[in-house]
C-alpha cells in the first residue's frame, strides 16, 4: 500500500511536470483556460503552466533559443532583444 501511494505521487508529479514544461504553449494556455473556467485562480494557473514561455521544451538550454526572439522575416529588420549577462568579474 505504501509503495502504491509513493508511486502515485511520483507519477502525478511526472504528469504535472510534463504538462507544465513540455506541452506546446498553446496547449498549456488551453489547460489554464479550462482550469480558470472551473474556478481556479487564473494568475496562479498561468504562472504554474508558464504560459508566457514559448521555449521548445527540450529540457536543456543548449542553444539559448529560449532566450531569444525568432529572426525577423525581412532581412532589413534588426533583431529586437538583447541577451543580458550580468556576471561580476
Amino acid at each position: 500500500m505504501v509503495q502504491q501511494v509513493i508511486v502515485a505521487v511520483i507519477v502525478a508529479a511526472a504528469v504535472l511536470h510534463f504538462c507544465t514544461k513540455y506541452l506546446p504553449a498553446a496547449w498549456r494556455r488551453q489547460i489554464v483556460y479550462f482550469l480558470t473556467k472551473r474556478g481556479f485562480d487564473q494568475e496562479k494557473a498561468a504562472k504554474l503552466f508558464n504560459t508566457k514561455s514559448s521555449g521548445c521544451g527540450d529540457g536543456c538550454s543548449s542553444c539559448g533559443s529560449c532566450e531569444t526572439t525568432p529572426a525577423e522575416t525581412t532581412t532589413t529588420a534588426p533583431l529586437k532583444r538583447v541577451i543580458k549577462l550580468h556576471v561580476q568579474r
Partner: protein
Amino acid sequence: MGAVEKALPEIPVQAKTPMVALLGNPNCGKTALFNRLTGARQKVANYAGVTIERKEGSFHSPAGHHFRVLDLPGAYSLSAHTPDEEITRDVVAGLRAGDPAPEVVVCVVNATNLRLNLRLVLEIKRLGLPMVLALNMVDVAKKRGLHIDADRLAQELGMPVVETVAVQAGGEKSLLRALDLMWPLHVTPPNPLSAIDKVSVEETQREVRRILDAVSSDANDTGNLTEKIDNVVLHPFAGPVILAVLMFLVFQAVFSWANAPMDLIKEGVDGVGGMIKGVMADGMLRSLLVEGILGGAGSVLVFLPQILILFFFILVLEDCGYLPRAAFLLDRLMGGVGLSGRAFIPLLSSFACAIPGIMAARTIQNPRDRLVTIMIAPLMTCSARLPVYALIIAAFIPEREVWGFMSLQGLVLFALYFAGIASAMAVAYFFKRTLGSKHQQPLMLELPAYHWPHLQNLALGLWERCKIFLSRVGTIILTLMILLWFLSSFPGAPEGATHPPIYYSLAGILGRGLEYVFAPIGFNWQICIALVPGLAAREVAVGALGTVYALSQSGDELAQSLTPIIASSWALPTALSLLAWYVFAPQCMSTLSVVRRETNSMRYPLLMAAYMFALAYAASFLTYRIALAFGG
C-alpha cells in the same frame, strides 16, 4: 541613412552606466574579450560567424567604474549585407529606437592581419565616437616576428591603442586601464552613416597601407605556418582525402575509446538496480525504480562517454581552425546543390543539435537559401541520434576489424553520418530544382590562423555538453520514462494471459495499433511504443526501449543491459530498418517548434515533418526489404 544629423552638446554620463561596444572583423577575438571582461562563457570558436546576436554584459574596472559591454557580430564594413552585420551597423550608429549609440567603441583588431582589419577602424572613426583600439593576438604576432609600434599607431589613428591577448588570463588588463583613463565618459552623438562614404574604399585602403608602412615591420616575419599547412590541407586532391580520413578516425575513436567508461557506467547502473532489488520487496515502487527509471534513463546515461568523445574531436577541430577549411573544401559540393556558402556554419552546428543550427541560418542573406538550410538542418546527424545508433550498432554489428585496422562498428557509424550529409545534399538539390535558384552565392570566408587548442576551452566545451546531456536525462527523459512505465504497467494482464503484462497495457494497445502501420518496415509493437515518447527527443527512444523490454522480460530472461536483449529479440533487417528510420525521421518536436518560430509560419514545420517522415518510411521499407531479400 537616417542617422542623427544634428550635433548635440556633450552630456556627462556618470549618472548612468556607460556602454562599451566591442566591434571588429569576424574572428578577431571579440567574444573571447567579452568573456574575459565579464567572466561570461559565451561560445567562442576559431572561425567567423559564431556571434549572430548582440550580447550584453557588465563589469567593474580596477578603478571601480561600472561599465556595460556589448559583444556585436563581426563585420568587415559598416556597409551591411546580412542581418547580423546590420545589427552591428545600427547599434554603433545609434539607429535603433530606444538604444542610444555606445559611449565608447572598442575596436578589436587581429594584430597578425592589420591590412584587412584597419579598414573597418577607419570607417568607424568617421562616425566620431570615442574609440579605443584593442590590438588583439599580439602574442601570435610577436611569435611570428611581426613588430607593431603601438604608440605610433595611436598617433596615426588618433585614439588609444592597447595590446590584448583575449585568450589569456589578464590579457584584458591594458584595455581596462585605457577605459579607466577615459573616465568620465560623455555621450557623443555619432555622425551620420553617410560620413563613411565620403572617402572611397580605394582611398581608405591606401590610408591603411600608409599607416602600416609607418607602424609595422615584417622584416623578421618567420613566415606563416598556417599558409604552409594550408598548402597541404587545402590541396584540391589531398584536402578532401585528409578531411575524409579525419572524420573517419573520429568515428573509429567513438567506438574504440568509449568501451571502458561505458562499462563503468553500465556496472554502476546495474549495481544500483541490484541494490534496490536487494533491499526492496517486489512491488510497484520497485518496478518503477528498476524497470522504469533505471531501465529507461539508465540505458541512455550509458552513452555519455561516446557523446563526449565525439564532441572532444569536434571542439579540437573547431579550436585549432580546421573547420572553416572543411567549409572551403565542401563549398563546391554545397554550391552544386544550390546551398549558400554561409550554410556551412548552420549545418555544422546541427551536428550538435539542429536547433542552434536552424537559428544560425539567420546569417544567410537570401531568404530562399535560408529556408533551404533550415529545411535540411535536421538531416545532419545530431548528438541525440548517437545513443540510438550506438545501441543498434553494438547489438548487431560484430566487433571485428576490417582490413586489419578499422573497426567495423566505427565504419557503420561513419556510414550513417555520411548518409545524413548525402541525404541533406540530395534534398537541397531537390529544393534547388523546385524552388529555383537564380545564382550561386559565393562563399567569402576568412581562414583563421591555426593554433593549438586551448585546454580550458576544450574542458569548458566538454563540460557544457556533459551538463546538457545529464540535464536531458534528468528532466525530459526521466519524466517520460515514468509516464511510459505507468502506461506500460496499467491495466494489468487479464487472467490466463499468455503475454507479459505490458502487452495488455495502454502502451501495449497503442504499440499494437501502430504495428499495423510499421509492420511493413519490420517494426514490432515494442519499437512502435518507443517511437511515441521518442517524438519528444530522439534519445528518449533508447530509454523507452529500455523500459519496454525490461517490462517485457520475465524470470530467467530478465537482463539488465538493453543491448543483449534487442540482439536476441530483433532480426538484422529490423535493426537496419530502424537505423534507416533514424537517419531521416523528424523525431524531435523541439526542432519543429523552432522552425515554426524562425519561419513565423506553420507551413514549413509541417512540410518538414511530412517530407522527413515520408523519406524515413521509404528508406526503412527499402532497407528492410533488401535485407530480407539477402536472407537477413
